[in-house]
């Protein structure tokens, strides 16, 4: 009676990615933890009404995005998140110390810029460039057209470019 596939399989298949997405758009692990749990609890309440042909992944991204937008509805909260978010230290590219230093710097700047973007641009950029969602799906998540979603990503890239002005960037594999 309940749902076409067990909900556990949905959690197993998508939880890690949704968490990563929320970690990226909120910049904070604690908020990503809360919002990812909320995303799946909401999904659980509603998944029985999904049609068998529904794109579960896109649906989960839409729920997560919606929650994120509500969460950041207060601009103050966003600013606080932005101000306190620390640039994470991670393992870096093994292409020699110089390339590594360049990459670390570029990534830091890029992350800072993305964090400072208006929410729609930040979400559209992250969904497109980090999670490879198509513009139709991004538009549905953001209650806008595919064209607007595309424009948000363009604006995001433009701002990133400005923020990286004067910085040497490492030569790396293209994203796709």
């Amino acid at each position, binding site marked *: 009676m309940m749902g076409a596939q067990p909900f556990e399989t949905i959690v197993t298949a998508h939880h890690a990615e949704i*968490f990563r997405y929320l970690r990226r758009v909120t910049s904070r692990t604690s908020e*990503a933890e809360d919002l990812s749990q909320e995303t799946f609890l909401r999904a659980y309440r509603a998944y029985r009404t999904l049609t068998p042909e529904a794109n579960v992944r896109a649906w989960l991204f839409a729920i997560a995005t919606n929650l994120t937008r509500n969460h950041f509805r207060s601009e103050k909260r966003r600013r606080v998140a932005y101000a306190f978010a620390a640039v994470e230290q991670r393992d870096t590219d093994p292409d020699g110390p110089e390339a590594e230093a360049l990459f670390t710097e570029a990534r830091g700047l890029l992350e800072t810029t993305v964090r400072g973007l208006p929410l729609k641009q930040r979400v559209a950029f992250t969904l497109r460039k980090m999670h490879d969602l198509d513009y139709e799906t991004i538009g549905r998540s953001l209650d806008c057209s595919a064209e607007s979603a595309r424009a948000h990503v*363009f604006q995001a890239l433009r701002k990133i470019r400005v923020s990286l002005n004067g910085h040497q960037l490492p030569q790396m594999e293209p994203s796709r």
Partner: protein
Amino acid sequence: MKVKPQACLKIEVDLVAVATGDAEGAVRGRVEDHIGFCAACRGDFQRYREIDGVVGALRRSPADGEGAVRARETLESRLADLRSRLMMYGVFPSPLGNILIARSEHGVSLVEYLGERTGFKSSRLSQVGGVEAQEDGVEVEALYRELLDYLHGKRTRLEWPLDLRLARSDFQRAVMKATVAIPYGAVASYAGIASDVGNRSAVRAVAQALRWNPLPIVVPCHRVIGSSGSLTGYAGDKLSLKMQLLGVEGVPTLTAHRDRRVARDAMYVRDRHEVEYCLPICGSLASRTLADLTLFASRERAESAGLAPCSACRPDLHPLSA
């Protein structure tokens, strides 16, 4: 400040799309043509390529694994909690007035007569602690269809998994389980159910337990009557619904001066210790109270409950007139 030529402004969106691997073939050709002769845009293009490389590396870099594991663990326990609390319900019209049907993950938990009312707030479900109720017509729609078939006499069984958690006590659950065993088209007495749950003197307690039956129809408390044959009561003050339900199952009833009762003389009888069914006049049956008897609306109903015709009174040879 240097102003960008119109052609460059026009192609900027496409240039960024192509440089970041986000454009189709025709657009790519146009952009390549443009940067072939525009050095400034060629520089921009190169810059966006570099940015795309950093974005790609960022995309491939590992996530916060520890946080993800922690979030997943907490999610599992919150999901288990939600599962145990969540009940889906729908309100539907029926020949017995509006009916609310609710189910949990374990089974159907509530069937409630709402009469003219349709709102969730008027339902018992809104008053139960520890339950998260969610309107979900789709989930309970199939149950409703089966219930309608039942009420229209097209179905004699509702083989639903049941969740008895809205019962008020273990005693009530025991009474409900005993009541489920009364076959379609038959009636037994409160005293009989009291015997079934091992306490012959608990007749009033049985009646109270069935008055608050959270699963009427499915747990067929309409098939339980007084030892005198009187219908007694139903779901508070809904005696007419009891008559209606018995009517659906073919049980003959009479109304004499305000007293509503089953037409005992028009029903086959089974002593609770026997495996045969009898005519109502067989032996001493006619003079006994219903405490130890079950009455059947028809031979067919008795036989589909696994009973054989009595070898003394031979109801098979002398059936009651319909």
